[in-house]
């Protein structure tokens, strides 16, 4: 499966994956603990999975979390990509740098400050707190990472590509959809996934801007810390992990299948 790569490179990758996945495997292992908490494995049991599936509140929160994560990263990716195009098209390097600095402010600001200022902002506008305010906040703090992921691709893009397209009579919409966006796709995908990660993991901002019974997984987990995070959450993480793994594998399989077919038929367009 490897082309001209030494064995050591593969060993390195295997070690890397082991390190990245060791805490996850540990979590999953603990989810089968008959005991109450992560320490002291006292026997195999599925009791925490049973708890999870009878906990309607938790299941509702999980689904809400994913709705927020998917929608916010989608919108953040769209806005961020166009934002990156905008920043890229600015010619004066001074203005470009200011824009970039502004872009990164939310990356560097601690979550409490972002959360508190969004809360003040929303209450000033008289917005009711809940799904809408959480969604907007997640879009807001995910945009900068999308820009950061898309911009390098834009910088790498050969401007002769665009010139050539224009010479061939393409209008700017066509240049965008036929040349620029396809070229940017890896960066856009990276931005989407990073935004998704940010959204799933955010606690502090969501805490401040949520209300009216709307909650996300991170808020629920953190607020349970004082009473001890139960293994129900481990069971949940194990299931989430397996599902994402299956989705990733499934997506990949379909993709592979399609491109194999396309290749047979001749050159396919991306």
């Amino acid at each position, binding site marked *: 499966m490897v082309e001209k790569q030494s064995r050591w490179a593969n060993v390195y990758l295997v070690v890397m994956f082991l390190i990245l996945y060791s805490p996850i495997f540990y979590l999953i292992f603990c989810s089968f603990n008959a005991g*109450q908490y992560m320490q002291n494995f006292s026997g195999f049991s599925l009791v925490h999975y049973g708890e999870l599936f009878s906990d309607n*509140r938790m299941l509702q929160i999980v689904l809400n979390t994913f709705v927020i994560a998917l929608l916010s990263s989608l919108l953040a990716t769209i806005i961020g990509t166009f934002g990156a195009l905008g920043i890229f098209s600015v010619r004066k390097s001074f203005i470009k740098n200011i824009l970039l600095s502004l872009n990164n402010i939310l990356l560097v600001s601690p979550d409490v400050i972002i959360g508190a200022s969004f809360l003040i902002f929303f209450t000033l506008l008289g917005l009711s707190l809940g799904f809408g305010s959480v969604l907007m906040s997640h879009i807001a703090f995910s945009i900068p990472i999308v820009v950061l992921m898309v911009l390098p691709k834009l910088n790498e893009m050969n401007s002769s590509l665009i010139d050539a397209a224009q010479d061939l009579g393409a209008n700017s919409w066509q240049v965008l959809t036929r040349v620029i966006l*396809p070229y940017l796709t890896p960066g856009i995908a990276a931005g989407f996934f990073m935004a998704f990660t940010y959204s799933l993991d955010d606690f502090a901002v969501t805490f401040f801007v949520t209300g009216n019974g709307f909650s996300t997984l991170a808020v629920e987990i953190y607020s349970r810390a004082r009473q001890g995070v139960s293994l129900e959450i481990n069971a949940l993480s194990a299931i989430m992990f397996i599902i994402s793994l299956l989705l990733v594998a499934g997506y990949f399989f379909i993709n592979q299948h399609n491109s194999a077919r396309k290749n047979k038929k001749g050159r396919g367009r991306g």
Partner: protein
Amino acid sequence: MKKLIYAMLAVLITSGLLALGARHFEQAQSAATGDERSGKVLNIYNWGAYIDPALITKFEKQTGIKVNYDTFDSNEAMLTKIQQGGTSYDITVPSDYTVQKMKQLGLLHPLDHSKLTTLKYYDPFIMNRAFDPHNEYSVPYFWGTLGITYNDKYVNAKDVQTWNDLWNPKFRDDIMLTDDARDVFGFSLLSMHKSVNTTDNADLLAAKGKLDALMPNVKAIAADEIKMYMAQDQAAIAVGYSGDASEMIEENSHLHYVIPKGGTNLWFDNLVIPKNAKHLAAAYKFINFINEPKNAAQNAQYIGYSTPNWAAKKLLPKSITDQKEFYPDDAMIKDDQVYTNLSQLKTQQYNDLYLEFKMARH
């Protein structure tokens, strides 16, 4: 481009389906049919997992009131949200000094005692504390002490009976502290027989000096994780709340909890009704419901903290209520002190000194 559009559609459709699923679970969750229009709703703002969920279901069945349960992870964070508004809660659960602070900020609704049918079940010594005289704004939910948890594999019981024992050089690198300026300064002040609410500069500086001398014994300063660390034998001694201690002991039978002789801090988590509550009747109903001895006992058994309800205490198994360290008799806690709210300037001073103490570690 096509690929991007397909991906976009896939994300939209998936989130639509997930939203439907969330809706389903929301409806499945509630035993009551009340909604915002009928007014049969109760918005509770509590620490995560700080109530037996079965009691919420029972309350909903009994009253037909739908409970919305939101959670917070610290008094301060909760206070900031209530203060800012934007969402209104009918019940929340602040600790002692936070009750006082909320009262001072005018964020609390005065309780109408004639509507509280379960007041008679409270232990008298728990009521009428300085943070809320005559329980005008709050009634206790759970209570406990600040104390020392030790592991009998490494520590003799007789070596940890007072606060001053912590300074014993043989506990080098053995002690875990809770990450809270009030608690850390609290026990340092207590060890010198000073008030945990002192505003005296000399006292505070002396407490800080004494803490600096404790530093070689301090292994780490952490928060809720201490429970995990202690259960895993990571440290021999922890300073923390009795509620956390009871959880640790459940996990690791080598652990024991001591209320230090010579006085300690007594803490209370309390039920209050915020000023901007919209469902007062439901809130009173809930306070009465949760204090029904049977319900209070069930809740105490689920949470593992000490209940302030004497009638509920009688319903609890003897094995629990006989534990003197969690249900101390009056003599053990007669010198105990409760936190009162400090002015912002003093809070700042406590925290600045505390930060300096933490920074002095390298």
